[in-house]
């Protein structure tokens, strides 16, 4: 092992617990709390200062977001006068105005985004897990070479391929369809997830698939019946990150979706900025909040997987 980054904990608790020095920390902490009175008072003051700093820093981090939420409920002329978070009245008109400010109601763009997101998630789940199974469990000619290439593609800037990809997709007539945004995912181009899943499958005991093989199962069956059900945490991580990235994706949508009928949420928001004068910040903020809501909800419910995914492979 060349880094201290641990792999995702395998479903088998024995493997997951081994080699984790984290456990050493608990007794040390307990001993500290049993110290003398003077010591614990000093420790408490220190903790209090820490909490103070963290709350201040955290508040500063979150303040702009809270301010946007509050501003989206404020009358337009107040937004530019109120740096505070208190509200004297609730102005829901920003939401109703913003919802219908563009050619289509905002729900139309949310639906477009949802189609792209669902397509991308399915694509990534299917194609990445298949590739990961091959890399983690099968021996084949060129395995090391392909694996190396796969790792390299993680670091490849997409600008090198975007021009020819655009030419390719425009020649098949896919501009202003969702295909250019979904098809690459069906072809496992998000190599991050292949790597994440390879790491996860490596943590699943091999005895399980060997037992299945002795029972006469072939690779498709081992993959579908043994490996896939055990790698649900990795699949969940993939789902959540794909959701957030695709929902936020601006560049791809900007290039491929030029017809307002096909706009996803980010391009619709950008069109909103362009079409409205600076006087409608309220409704612009309202729709920005609406656009952030799905990501926020996914964050709320998927935190565990998000944190694990990040700590393991460094995906954002």
């Amino acid at each position, binding site marked *: 092992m060349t880094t201290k980054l641990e792999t995702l904990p395998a479903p088998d608790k024995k493997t997951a617990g081994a080699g984790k020095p984290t456990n050493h920390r608990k007794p040390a902490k307990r001993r500290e709390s049993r110290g003398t009175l003077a010591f614990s008072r000093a420790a408490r003051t220190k903790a209090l200062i820490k909490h103070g700093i963290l709350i201040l820093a955290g508040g500063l981090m979150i303040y702009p977001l809270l301010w946007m939420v509050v501003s989206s409920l404020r009358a337009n002329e107040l937004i530019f006068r109120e740096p505070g978070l208190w509200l004297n009245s609730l102005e829901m008109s920003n939401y109703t105005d913003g919802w219908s400010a563009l050619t289509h109601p905002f729900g139309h763009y949310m639906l477009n985004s949802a189609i792209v997101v669902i397509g991308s998630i399915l694509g990534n789940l299917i194609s990445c897990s298949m590739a990961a199974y091959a890399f983690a469990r099968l*021996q084949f000619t060129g395995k090391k070479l392909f694996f190396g290439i796969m790792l390299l593609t993680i670091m490849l800037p997409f600008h090198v391929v975007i021009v020819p990809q655009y030419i390719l997709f425009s020649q098949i007539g896919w501009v202003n369809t969702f295909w250019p945004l979904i098809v690459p995912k069906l072809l*496992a181009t998000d190599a991050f997830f292949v790597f994440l899943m390879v790491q996860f499958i490596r943590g699943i005991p091999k005895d399980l698939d060997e037992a299945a093989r002795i029972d006469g199962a072939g690779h498709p069956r081992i993959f579908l019946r043994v490996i896939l059900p055990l790698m649900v945490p990795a699949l969940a991580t993939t789902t959540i990150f794909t959701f957030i990235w695709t929902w936020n994706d601006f560049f791809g949508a900007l290039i491929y979706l030029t017809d307002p009928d096909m706009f996803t949420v980010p391009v619709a928001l950008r069109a909103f900025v362009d079409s409205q004068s600076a006087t409608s910040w309220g409704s612009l903020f309202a729709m920005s909040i609406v656009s952030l809501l799905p990501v926020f909800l996914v964050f709320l419910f998927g935190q565990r997987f998000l944190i694990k995914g990040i700590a393991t492979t460094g995906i954002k």
Partner: protein
Amino acid sequence: MSAISELSTLKRRKGPMTAAEKKANGRDNKAAYIFLLPWLVGLVAITVGPMLMSLYLSFTDYNLLQPPEWVGLDNFIRMFADARLHNSLGVTFTYVFVGVPLQLGVALLIALVLDKGLRGLPFYRSVFYLPSLLGGSVAVAILWKQIFGTTGLVNQALAMFGIQGPGWISDPSTALGSIVLLHVWTFGAPMIIFLAGLRQIPVMYYEAAKVDGASTLQQFWRITLPMLSPIIFFNLVLQIIGSFQSFTQAFIVSGGNGGPSDSTMFFTLYLYQKGFGQFDMGYASAMAWFLLVIIGVFTAINFIAAKYWVFYDD
């Protein structure tokens, strides 16, 4: 293990195959390629094919309407003389070399504060992490544009102290700074990687240091930093590669034109304008390859320099 360290150990594992492995080799080839099929098709059609195509296009003049016309090194010579491109390089370098160290510094600092058995860790972690999930969105870029606007949140706050703030976004000397700040604001992701790394440092090292009378600062320099260096390296490589490709924030904050007076004209924004604004696809391809070379060089420098400062415990 991370993708980056995996890549550097890939070569080391070479060795003669055992007989059993050779046997397994033959048995699984067909199945493996079937499982790899989507990825292989993607590699050829979506990655390697387009890469070769873009290399070819970089030597041509191509506007999508007429067939590409071979112009040799013309595009690269044009790049040499293109003052806007040089400016966009400067903007991007400033963004990367100010933004990345700042962001990683803050990430490490907060991770250190959070690490030592503090109550409410999950809560703080969420608060600090949330911005990095939202930071890439158009909505947050719009928010940023307002916050640093002439009558925006920052200036409203300053006005309470009687200070008249500048128009941060409309002033060429501060516009880039506000985007750098947006980048620093999203320090949550590297912070979580640091936290995971700090967890892996055995507590006994610190206990031994305490017995020897080492101060907190000495412990940080002699234990924490060396033990964490692989993770700092990992974050550094990832963030540099990612930051060179930043686009959305600059696009939205500047209204798509890299203004004021090109002060937020990122390299990728200029590439977008050349390729998808003016349909100068040959030039855009040449720019893309130049970007790839820059990123490649910086990643290589990172890996070479790593030998001198990254400490491996094996």
